[in-house]
């Protein structure tokens, strides 16, 4: 694969595609979320990632990673962490408001599903942010 992209960049693009393909329909199309759907989503993303990463690894001769890759990875994790921390504050605040105004009692089963959906959504958004931040860093040369 003789492209201008390094092995890590190709791997990141594949991760982003997998994340958008799997998580996108889940959050856009499904109104009712459940534990089974979340578990299915996690299994699907793991399988898809293994397939995509295997294909990229087999098509890429030079799989060297270096200090710049590690620096960009750290920047990605920082962006992902900041996103997750911000979303946690916002998400918990919104759930608390929901409960406070009586829309959903804290002890109800629906509240548990809401928690699951909200926290899963936070993880997904922060993961996509992490991947996207790394791609942007590569495109800007750092």
């Amino acid at each position, binding site marked *: 694969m003789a492209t*201008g992209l*390094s092995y890590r*960049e190709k791997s990141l693009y594949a991760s982003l595609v997998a994340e958008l393909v799997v998580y996108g329909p889940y959050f856009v199309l499904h109104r009712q979320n459940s534990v089974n759907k979340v578990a299915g989503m996690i299994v699907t993303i793991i399988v898809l990632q293994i397939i995509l990463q295997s294909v990229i690894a087999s098509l890429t001769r030079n799989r*060297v990673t*270096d*200090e*710049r*890759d590690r620096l960009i990875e750290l920047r990605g994790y920082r962006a992902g962490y900041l996103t997750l921390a911000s979303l946690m504050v916002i998400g918990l605040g919104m759930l608390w408001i929901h409960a406070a105004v009586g829309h959903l009692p804290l002890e109800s089963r629906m509240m548990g599903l809401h928690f699951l959906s909200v926290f899963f959504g936070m993880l997904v958004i922060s993961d996509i942010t992490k991947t996207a931040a790394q791609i942007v860093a*590569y495109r800007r*040369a750092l």
Partner: protein
Amino acid sequence: MPAIRNQIRELRALREMTQQELADRVGVTRQTVIAIEQDKYSPSLETAFKVAIVLGVPIEQCFQYDPQGKR
């Protein structure tokens, strides 16, 4: 102007060495060599020394520090 500038492109051209050859000998990716040559990435001290050794010049001939430059 960046704080750390370099003459890698010129030194590499004098030796008729490609970016990939330099990258392989230093142990980095070709994209990192490109980023260094474009002054978009300042390498670690270890990588800077390796570049100088591969190009066969003192490190100060490869890299220069400008205190007035942007970090």
